[in-house]
């Protein structure tokens, strides 16, 4: 199996362990990831609030580069905001030819053009549908039995696009978790918003949302995420959220590929575990990372 790979800006900075673990797990599964050459920012949620056309042109630049490298190929995207932005352009140009014309006028400034020949997919979609529980089981080298795991999906990998899972009651992570021998923590917070970018501009609101998720995860050994923004809000603001709620909300938070990688026999070092902001000493000892 071979995919194009769009890491996105966070995976070069605050989410470096998401990049390291995604690449390590894909290699261990025999999947080849081909990084889109000269990729640039997708605009995140900022572009859309400033310029409509820019919010389509920034992702389109990356789609054009991807199409050039492998026409018709699937692009794997670990960041949910990047996924939403790239996917939206693919969907919208099918219905809006004028938009495609404008995008190509902008891309033409760099000698690029786009024709709709890409398929953007979230990393979770690829892990759940193309690899699947069987793909993990077949290559598992270590059982994670005895661990209880809370799958946290967040928003933009499911809504408004997605299609590979239920957008309100997602479950695509569950078979993957069970394939490692671990148990799924039953909860209803998997698709609730963590506050996303409000953590920077309206902190008190985001801290409350994050606190509710952390509280509901109590009883689990760790939370798994599939988005750098969710991860940052859940792992780096535990102290603030605990203070706001007057309660200790400390819990380990890992990226999904980090967890799957452990089952595949990869080491903590292979999976970038040294970069995690919230990994309790108890879980570190238990996982030997």
């Amino acid at each position, binding site marked *: 199996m071979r995919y194009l790979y769009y890491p996105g800006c966070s995976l070069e900075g605050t989410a470096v362990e998401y990049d390291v673990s995604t690449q390590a797990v894909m290699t261990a599964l025999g999947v080849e990831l081909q990084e889109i050459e000269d990729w*640039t920012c997708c605009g995140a949620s900022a572009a859309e609030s400033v310029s409509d056309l820019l919010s389509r042109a920034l992702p389109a630049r990356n789609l054009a580069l991807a199409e050039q490298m492998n026409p018709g190929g699937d692009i794997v995207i670990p960041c949910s905001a990047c996924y939403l932005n790239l996917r939206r352009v693919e969907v919208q140009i099918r219905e809006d030819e004028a938009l495609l014309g404008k995008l190509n006028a902008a891309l033409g400034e760099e000698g690029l053009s786009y024709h709709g020949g890409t398929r953007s997919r979230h990393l979770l979609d690829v892990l759940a549908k193309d690899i699947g529980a069987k793909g993990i089981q077949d290559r598992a080298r270590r059982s994670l039995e005895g661990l209880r795991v809370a799958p946290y999906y967040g928003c933009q990998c499911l809504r408004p696009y997605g299609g590979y899972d239920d957008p309100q009651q997602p479950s695509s992570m569950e078979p993957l978790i069970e394939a490692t021998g671990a148990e799924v923590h039953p909860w209803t917070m998997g698709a609730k918003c963590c506050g996303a970018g409000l953590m920077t501009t309206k902190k008190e609101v985001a801290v409350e949302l994050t606190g509710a998720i952390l509280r509901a995860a109590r009883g689990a050994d760790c939370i798994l995420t599939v988005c750098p923004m969710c991860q940052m809000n859940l792992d*780096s603001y535990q*102290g603030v959220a605990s203070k706001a709620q007057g309660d200790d909300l400390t819990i380990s938070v890992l990226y999904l590929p980090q967890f799957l990688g452990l089952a595949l026999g990869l080491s903590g070092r292979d999976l970038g575990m040294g970069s995690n902001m919230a990994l309790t000493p108890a879980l570190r000892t238990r996982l030997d990372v």
Partner: protein
Amino acid sequence: MSQASPAPKKEREKSPLWDAIREHIRTCMQCGTCTGSCGSSAAMDFTPRQLWRMVQLDLQDEIFTSRTFSLCSSCYYCTLRCPRGLPLTETIHTLKRLAAARGFTGKEKGTRFYRSFLKTARRYGRIREMELMTRYFLAMKDPILPFGFTPLGVKLLRKGKISPQIPRLSGPGKLDAIFRKVEELEAGS
């Protein structure tokens, strides 16, 4: 007969963006599913349902001075669940763009953060988080603001996830050509 008539009511501002917003919300039946689905609604001065009614009633001043739409985290829950299938989250983004264009939220944190973000993207092609925050702090001109982020910054520095960078404020940018063309196309439309 010569009695002065009362001052005419302030003319509502007309714009294609505002018309598009009203068109999107025209069939809203005020069921409140959006408010029930919104994680931030408790912190809003007007709930999402009230906001959409205000759009229908053309209450522009009240809408643009409220904090409702700046509290949207783009979770798309309301859009997913709206029984009328209205593009609510996208309409919030249009409201943010219109508010910024009209100068309503020039001092608003969200707007300044978005602009700082795009300046960083334009210059380097990719976001460098440390520089983004430096630009944001400079734009906010609030000497206290950075201290709120210091504990996180220290943790991230210690993990080697960010590195100190001095923003380059002049010179050519990686995405200048596309940004310029987009501005030109938007000005023409």
